[in-house]
């Protein structure tokens, strides 16, 4: 789950040791500020352009937390008519709007009782490497 911590391999360095070992702090880890609840965090990939207006482009990796309760304006993942969707959560008085870029992307739920939130999208990963840079181990950046 927290891959980066796994990868910080235990490499025994021999020889000179820093004299200020007592001041040593663990190095920064991106998961400290991205993943709050690893036991309830899941990953999906965006497979459409329905949310480009929200800066969620196709192939972005979605970091989803199931333990969060959706509030108006947040981005949610839900299952609807056989597919998982990513949309903006906009409850109205008697209906639930799940908004996308355009009207056609927006899904309207009449019976809110039956609608179930699968999780709240906390953040997305947007890989910026150019194709020619995706070589060797860099081929793994957001590759899924």
């Amino acid at each position, binding site marked *: 789950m927290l891959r980066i911590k796994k990868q910080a391999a235990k490499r025994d360095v021999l020889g000179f040791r820093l004299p200020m070992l007592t001041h040593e702090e663990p190095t920064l880890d991106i998961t400290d500020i991205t993943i709050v*609840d690893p036991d309830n965090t899941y990953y999906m990939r965006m497979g459409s352009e329905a949310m480009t207006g929200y800066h969620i482009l196709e192939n972005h990796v979605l970091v989803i937390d199931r*333990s969060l309760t959706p509030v108006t304006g947040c981005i949610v993942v839900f*299952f609807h008519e056989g597919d998982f969707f990513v949309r903006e959560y906009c409850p109205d008085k008697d209906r639930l709007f799940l908004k996308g870029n355009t009207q056609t992307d927006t899904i309207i739920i009449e019976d809110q009782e039956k609608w179930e939130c699968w999780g709240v999208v906390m953040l997305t990963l947007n890989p910026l490497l150019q194709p020619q840079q995706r070589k060797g181990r860099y081929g793994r950046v957001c590759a899924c």
Partner: protein
Amino acid sequence: MDVFAHVDINNCYVSCETLFNPALKGKVVVVLSNNDGCVIARSNEAKALGIKMADAEFIVRQQLKENNAVIFSSNYALYADMSARMMNNLARYTYMLMVYSIDEAFLALGNISGMDLEQHVAMISRNVMRDTGLSITVGVGPTMALAKLANKASKKMKRNYLVLDTANKVNQIVKDFPIEDVWGIGRQYYEKLKELDVITAGDFRALKPDLVRQLMTVQGWRLHQELWGKPCNVIKDVADRSKGIESSQSFNTYQTELEKIEEAAAMHAATVALKLRQQQSMALALTIYLRTNKHNVSHDQHYPSITVKVPFATNSTQQLTAICVQALRAIYQPGYNYLKTGVRATGIIPAGEIQFNLFDTYDNSRQQALSGLMDDINARYGRGILRVAAEGYNKTWKMKQDFLSKQYTTNWNDIIVAK
């Protein structure tokens, strides 16, 4: 009063599949065992059809087809990950958690006389179900046996949880609770008790403790005490270092060639070695066995097995696979249709307690470093990327998994694509 909770995941494997494919809700769903042999998990709809646990797949095949059932092979990568997530979630509500199986755990809730137990349990149930997406049943009682009984009773009442915190509530449930459903009452004891007209847990409680001890040894006596609300079982703080570690699997088709069987056995030895390293232990002995299909009466049967003492305790992949392959050559005989091979490590000791062989010139630390490096590389690039050559490349003997779902939580290539 200290109380315990027993939590289990309802239809665990089916629930895991449904979480990542909600379209399965309300459908007849079954999960098959290794090699797609028999049914090991059923949705409520499948249970309603009368499909039983451990029904052979070929027997219920027609019935499943007629009911448009959705069938899955066991996706253990997914189930194990979801189980770990569940256990980590449960651990937040207790100071002591005992994982009892892949889908069950006991929680010590301590002495919580200061708060409304019923409400507290309802909160745990609600939060865990929301966070994990798996539905659970919680049974709460003054002892582990009563907690487990409360869980079962709650399922029968179609409730999410049941709290037995007073003698009155316990009496009410116990008096109609069938004795055969009580934790620890196997078939033999059930027959014995039936002769004494013991039909319910209440009848059992009414027996004299001495009689129970005579009839069912100290185990039965403990159960008797527990049903009276006197704790005898304790939640063990640390899991016992397992006495043996085994890896085994049936082949998808009969194997007659030594070479293929060697590959499989080497893979099992590598798995055992990895497990040993994960729990920081070493093994002193290795058992390798072969099995033919005992159900196929037209085949000659051969169940050889060999236990080899390892020269010095080890958990190195290279060593264990080498020993395994050697040992296998000693027991293998051509001409039999082998169906299964397995490797079991015994004599397990903590890695710190190795006794070195005086005449041993072998450098164990190098083997350790190599195995550790293999683990790191495999953790990074995927299990089995780097392996000893004996494990082979084209795993033609690999188990049958025709209906495998994706590894939604353990493989980046398998994560769900949303619209």
